């Protein structure tokens, strides 16, 4: 089982936390598309926070699962790769529709309502512009999730295995 397949399965399983992170990234990407230069830095910071928080929460709630993977032979770098890929799927899953919605809104504003309702200097983004924004969002998200992923890979295995499963915690 490659880290990529495990990551994809985890994200596809659609836990509420994954969906919430995707929605947050989508909103941020939409704002990024519609916003002007000075607005982009706080929006990118928001993307970084969402990505880091999502990865940190995932590693905490899945401590036993990650410890099991380590105990069965998954290496630390592979675990980091798996968590980074999860962050990548979540970011792509949120950023693509978010940027799409933002671009559609900008295009509508430009062609239906006229340029006056958009901030100065802002129009419907070109395809290359959208690609650049997507790359920016993904880069920020991956960088932000790297720290919690490395911390998860460095945790001791034995205490993670001792974490009780949810049905026994009560």
């Amino acid at each position, binding site marked *: 089982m490659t880290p990529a397949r495990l990551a994809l399965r985890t994200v596809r399983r659609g836990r509420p936390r994954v969906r919430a992170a995707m929605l947050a990234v989508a909103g941020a990407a939409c704002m990024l598309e519609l916003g002007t230069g000075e607005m982009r830095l706080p929006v990118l910071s928001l993307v970084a926070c969402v990505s880091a928080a999502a990865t940190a929460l995932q590693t905490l709630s899945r401590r036993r699962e990650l410890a099991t993977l380590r105990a*069965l032979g998954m290496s630390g770098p592979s675990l980091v790769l798996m968590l980074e890929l999860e962050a990548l799927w979540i970011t792509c899953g949120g950023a693509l529709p978010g940027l799409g919605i933002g671009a559609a809104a900008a295009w509508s504003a430009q062609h239906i309502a006229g340029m006056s309702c958009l901030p100065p200097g802002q129009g419907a983004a070109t395809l290359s512009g959208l690609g650049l924004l997507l790359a920016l969002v993904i880069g920020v998200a991956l960088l932000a999730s790297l720290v919690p992923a490395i911390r998860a890979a460095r945790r001791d295995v034995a205490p993670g295995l001792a974490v009780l499963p949810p049905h026994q915690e009560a």
Partner: protein
Amino acid sequence: MQTEAALLSLSGIHKHYRHGESSVHALCDIGLQVDAGEMVAVCGPSGHGKTTLLNVIGLLEPACAGRLVLDGVDVAGLDESARVALRVRTIGPVFQCFTLIPVMTARDNVMLPLLLRRRLTRPERSDAQALATELLARVGLASHIHHRPARLDPGQCQRVAIARALVTRPRLVLADEPTSRLDGSALRMVLELFTACQREQGTAFVITTRDQRQLVRASRTLQLNEGRLGPRQADLPRHFPRHAAAHAPLHTTRVAV
């Protein structure tokens, strides 16, 4: 007496944990030798170090002092990656809470140790699937291979975890209360599988258990009390030939594991 020929050899193992200024001595001067094909049962009250002992043997936690030789390799001189390689090559673990991966089916969970070792070719993957399916059938879960852990009851999860421990054909299986959730027929199937592995592959087992039905199958029964390991004879029936227990005739079909 220690011999390097033993599969597992522990001498003078100590393990303690620090909690602030106090220190808890989990294992005190543990000495143990396990040969290939042997089943050693360790019993004792909760919190007296059984899981810690398995973690130390399984190279999941380092001992504070003492010598541990596993499969002829003294682990003291190994770095982390070499310890992981030795663990993956030699040991099949059954963890106390089963710890299956929730997003994977029962069969994929069983295959997981093989998949984590290296990238499998298509024929190797087919072989791994066949082996996992066969092991699941041996523990009575042939009709559950595509079920995720959430759709399995705790006893079934435990059997999946046991199949997962055996899929790599390990030389040593470390099982933390592996039969705690099993009823009569499931327990019989699991014990038959353990015995088949002992006979056919020379797999050794170190098992923590409080289950009398499993204790009678053990080659040796040891007691762990407050971190100290000693022999235990009291709970076993006097008439039972302990060393022959593992090789008692069983109604089992031959399966190469």
